[in-house]
């Protein structure tokens, strides 16, 4: 039995489902159709095969997720990843935090920011803009979500425009969505 991971890490674990993934060979037409939307160059992950129990939602998921994280303009790629990590830290989704901290580190070419966030959460010592983004995203990820005119103003004060605030909101809340699937339908285990 492989070890379940409980601490934040940038080493990407394996996700082990609690729910049985669908069997591709016995998939319904709707499930096959939905699975076509997912990247075809790699083996279909257990996560996607679990979500295929609900093909109507899965069908839309890939375009929406990719668009929010990669569509051009607006907020930088690394700051979208920061929003994703902030949500994943609040929701303690170890798997999502690992994947997106890893991506952040690759984009910025340094692992200091993520190390500090994993260690100290919202009290991490970061530059003003990074800190404002992290705090906004973490407050938004709480329940009930915290967002006031002051929260928006703090983002404007560090230079975010309306487009960037919208993009940050989308990437942060998208991970509130992903975390609630990934963290509740399975668990991260160490790769052997």
């Amino acid at each position, binding site marked *: 039995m492989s070890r379940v991971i409980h601490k934040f890490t940038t080493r990407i674990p394996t996700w082990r489902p*609690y*729910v*049985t993934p669908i069997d591709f060979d016995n998939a319904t037409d*709707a499930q096959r159709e939905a699975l076509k939307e997912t990247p075809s160059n790699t083996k279909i992950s257990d996560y996607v095969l*679990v*979500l295929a*129990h*609900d093909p*109507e*939602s899965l*069908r*839309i*998921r890939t*375009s*929406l997720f990719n*668009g*929010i994280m990669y*569509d051009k*303009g*607006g907020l930088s790629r690394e700051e979208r990843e920061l929003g994703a990590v902030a949500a994943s830290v*609040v*929701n*303690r*989704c170890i798997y999502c935090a690992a994947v997106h901290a890893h991506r952040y580190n690759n984009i910025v070419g340094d692992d200091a920011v993520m190390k500090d966030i994993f260690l100290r959460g919202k009290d991490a010592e970061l530059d003003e803009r990074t800190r404002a983004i992290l705090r906004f995203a973490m407050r*938004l*990820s709480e*329940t*009930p*979500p915290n*967002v*006031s*005119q002051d*929260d*928006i103003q703090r983002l404007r004060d560090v230079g975010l*425009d*309306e*487009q960037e*605030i*919208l*993009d940050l*909101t*989308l990437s*942060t*809340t*998208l991970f*509130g*969505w*992903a*975390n*609630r*699937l990934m*963290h*509740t*339908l399975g*668990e991260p285990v160490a790769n052997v």
Partner: protein
Amino acid sequence: MTHVIETAAHVPQSGPLADALAMRGKLMALTQDSHDAALTPSDPGGVPLALRAALACRMARICHQAGLEKHYATLLSSYGDEHIALLADPEVIPETSEPRLAAIVAYVDLVTRSPKEATKADIGALRQAEVEEADIVRLAGLVAFTNYQLRVTAVLSVMGEAK
């Protein structure tokens, strides 16, 4: 095209926020499609449409999101199921004589309020209450999507307010 989020958040028709949303028009349309897939799917499986609307309304109340609460309440009343509609109130917990419904509501409350505390045992509890695997995924998808929609709406409502 009018979407649920933009309507619930009273987003202005013009100005910088409207422009920002127009730039992400494709994503807002996909968000609306996801709403339809979660709340009014053509194959609801073992999670009926009225229950979905009641649970979404409950989550909106837990998240203090009045605009979406109104939207889900209207959807809920369209089904005319008074028994299920009671669950829109977060204070209402199903009777022990309805173990399946009680397990579903317990999962919704936990994963809305504090997803970090969810464990394998919570999925075990759904299974024990005879919620089928496909319905566990449908339910998780509903809770996850609704929490996304509630937070996007919360931010847009604040951004759209007069400055």
